[in-house]
């Protein structure tokens, strides 16, 4: 089998995480610090400096840039698109540079990948950005016409887990139905139907279960009362719900391992909140099962909290009647990006093109 060498770029706020893959095998991973990131007036202004730093680093370690076959970058805040591997083209670059949908370090993924790939005569891709939106129309109805349900979730990890489970089941992801629960700082639980995430809670904007620091779904009446109570400003309310809610607001603890330690010591309060967390996650999974009409190949638990045996056991206890549960703790973004790129290079999938309309157009490039 031919070896494909892929460079993966995952920009963070003050660093760039890079990894070198040879087919599925990671041969190198490093975080390249960008101490002066805050000095730039915009995200896109950092591209030349970050690109040079990454290239210099790779060269200093002895790697031959000419041996690269493709570069895969983290997708940024683009227009809503379907999941998949997209070739970084002029339109995408323009949107990322403009940052009209928000300035975020992940916008740099496609920009840096394209900058490097151009000089190396190889393609640049992004894979399953956070803006993946495959919701069915029915799922967008919120019950209030001025507010539409949106798809904002951990698309990269969701889809990577779905593919992995499909492979273990001996099937294609596009032929399976899964419920994927990403249990991290935010919790997103999605219904994957035949390769599309047709419904998922908006973990960033207050839907679904609460998490270590975020409030989940709240009764809107009480919320409106609180917002207009005069006690908190707009900004304060936003920060409260995003950073000072969830487990932390009850117990002043952010790590569920601290709760587990408290439970072992006999803390009833810790147990209550812990059980409530598992309860809400299971309830959301149950809800997703109805979206898929009970036809589910597997439930997948992933994210950092999935490392907790206690939490997994509690969730499984409530959901095992729905389908088998697979656990893939943590999240390996770098691997997911590399695999997405590899599928295209091997011709298993066609790279998609980014354009104005939501419908997908496939490019000629197929590896």
């Amino acid at each position, binding site marked *: 089998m031919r070896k494909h060498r892929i460079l993966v770029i995952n920009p963070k706020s003050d660093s760039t995480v890079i990894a070198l893959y040879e087919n599925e095998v990671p041969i190198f991973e490093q975080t390249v610090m960008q101490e002066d990131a805050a000095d730039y007036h915009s995200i896109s202004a950092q591209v030349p400096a970050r690109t*040079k730093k990454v*290239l210099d680093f790779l*060269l*200093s*370690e*002895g*790697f*031959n*840039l*000419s*041996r690269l076959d493709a570069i895969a970058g983290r997708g940024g805040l683009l227009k809503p698109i379907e999941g998949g591997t997209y070739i970084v083209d002029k339109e995408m670059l323009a949107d990322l540079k403009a940052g009209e949908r928000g300035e975020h370090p992940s916008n740099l993924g496609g920009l840096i990948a394209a900058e*490097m790939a*151009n*000089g*190396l*005569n*190889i393609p640049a891709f992004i894979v399953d950005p956070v803006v993946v939106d495959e919701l069915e129309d029915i799922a967008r109805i919120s019950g209030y016409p001025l507010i539409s349900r949106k798809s904002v979730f951990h698309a990269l990890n969701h889809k990577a887990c779905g593919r992995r489970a499909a492979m273990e089941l001996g099937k294609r992801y596009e032929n399976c139905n899964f419920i994927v629960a990403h249990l991290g700082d935010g919790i997103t639980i999605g219904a994957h139907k035949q390769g599309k995430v047709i419904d998922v809670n908006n973990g960033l904007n207050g839907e679904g279960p609460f998490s270590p620091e975020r409030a989940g779904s709240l009764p809107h009446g009480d919320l409106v009362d609180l917002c207009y109570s005069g006690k908190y400003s707009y900004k304060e309310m936003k920060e409260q719900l995003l950073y000072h809610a969830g487990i932390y607001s009850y117990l002043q603890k952010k790590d569920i391992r601290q709760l587990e330690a408290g439970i072992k010591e006999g803390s009833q309060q810790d147990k209550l909140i812990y059980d409530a967390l598992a309860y809400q996650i299971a309830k959301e999974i149950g809800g997703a099962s109805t979206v898929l009409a009970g036809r589910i190949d597997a439930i997948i638990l992933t994210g950092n909290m999935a490392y907790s045996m206690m939490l997994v056991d509690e969730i499984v206890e409530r959901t095992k009647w729905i389908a088998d549960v697979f656990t893939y703790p943590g999240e390996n973004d770098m691997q997911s990006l590399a695999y997405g790129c590899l599928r295209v290079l091997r011709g298993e999938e066609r790279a998609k093109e980014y354009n104005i309309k939501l419908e997908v157009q496939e490019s000629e490039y197929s590896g």
Partner: protein
Amino acid sequence: MDLSYQSTEQSIFHELKEAVILIDKQGRIVYYNQQASTLAKGQNNPGLARDAHILDVFPKSELMRVLQTKKAEIRKLFRLSEHISVLVSRFPLLNKDGEVLGAAAIIQQGSDGEDDWRVGEYIQQGMQAVLQNTSQAFVILDEHRLVIMQNPAYEKFLLLLKNNSSAEADWKEQLENVSKKTMQTRRTVEQKVEGSPIEGNIRCIPNLIDGIWKGCILFVDYDMEQAELIKQLEQSRRIIRALEAQSRFDDFTAESSRMRMAVQQGKIAADMDYIVFLRGPAGTGKKMFANAIHNEGKRKYQAFSVIDCLQEKEKITAFLEMLNSEDTSRHPQGTVYLKSITDLSIEQQKKLYRICTNHYDTAGYRLVVSSSVNVETAMMEGLFLQDLYYYLLQTSIHLPALRERKEDVPLLVHEWIQIGNKEHSSCVSSVDQAALETLQNFPYQHNFKELQAVINYSLAKLNREKTTLCEADLAFATSTIDSNQKASIPHNEDKPLSELVEEYEKVIIERTLKELDGNKTLTAKKLGLSVRNLYYKLEKYHLN
């Protein structure tokens, strides 16, 4: 001239701590002071006396030599006896016309008296042993801050710095600053070296004699564990570069003047944009050199592509078409290395010449081309375009064959043994002289590749416990070197197939040439080769 002294001068000499002896040009003692008398008596000599010949009474003074050489000898360590050493300065006494009148010896005693004569040498030798063997790195500078002496630990430290240019620059700057500050302040100066890949501390102690600056001693402390790790990291990176086929000029062993010149030319070319023409026999590292030019130039972040003009006919045709097109967006980025341009057809060479002369200056890409055959011969035979030849000649770099750079062979051998040890789990640490000479003098046909193959093959077959590679251990792939010898079909002597094939090919070509009275055109036709290809093989097998 009267060398006898007035009483005043005698008094002065008698007051000196040092022993003073004066002789005339015949070697007769003219004057000596009390200290000299005491010194000479202690040596089982009859004792100094006026008009006595110096050789009779004090032969060890060695003053007769100074009469002949007419050269001063300052503060020489002089062994009086088994246990006594002194410092002696000897001067010729010359008149205004430069004629020798006599000689003088001034013998320096120890500051505390006669016991110092005896312990002087012990201390000296002891000190020498300590200085040479201490792990503390230090260097002694004179009053001009020039190095007088550095101990082995300091030399080791310098070698360590040499492998890390960033650390080297940091430390050199700090050492300079600290010694300068010490000179200015006449005080001990300490300075930490931080933020460098190798961190540590410098301490500089002034050497003052009677308050006068005579130099200083620089002590260097560095984190040896960190330094060792850095050294290993550099070695690992070098191995990675080798595995990645990613070359730099530092990777070329260049002790020989020819190779040094080639590397120097390469470094200049790396900073420029002109087409580089690399010439040299097969196996001299032209591709590696082209890669180094790419990696040390402004295109290092871009692609380095290789097109073999002999093996990839379609690719080179498409490439030349692309470069000739008006649509510059199709032009490649980075460096393109065209291997064996003598294998291009005349038409292709004309295209290449047009590319070079028309719009290469404004192109975003860079070309490096090479040839293993003698281009002049090819040109004279009508196989290489004259215009292109003269164009490329301006920027050609010659990579010498191993036989032209024999002094590099031992270093290459040692380098490849280190790499080969890892691959073959051998532990060879040295090569005996006979083996080195054989390796140096062997007429390699494939230069580096062949030498490397010999080393690898020898290590692979070697007893794992052997630490020295001897001549008998060497495993050469080719068994015949004299082209005048009658070639025979090589026997299967446990050689790789590729080498057997090459040996057989050489034999067949040689035979066919002889049969056809050296007619190359007919030989090419009979063997089913292009004339160009035949010339290439003749060059390769040294059958010209």
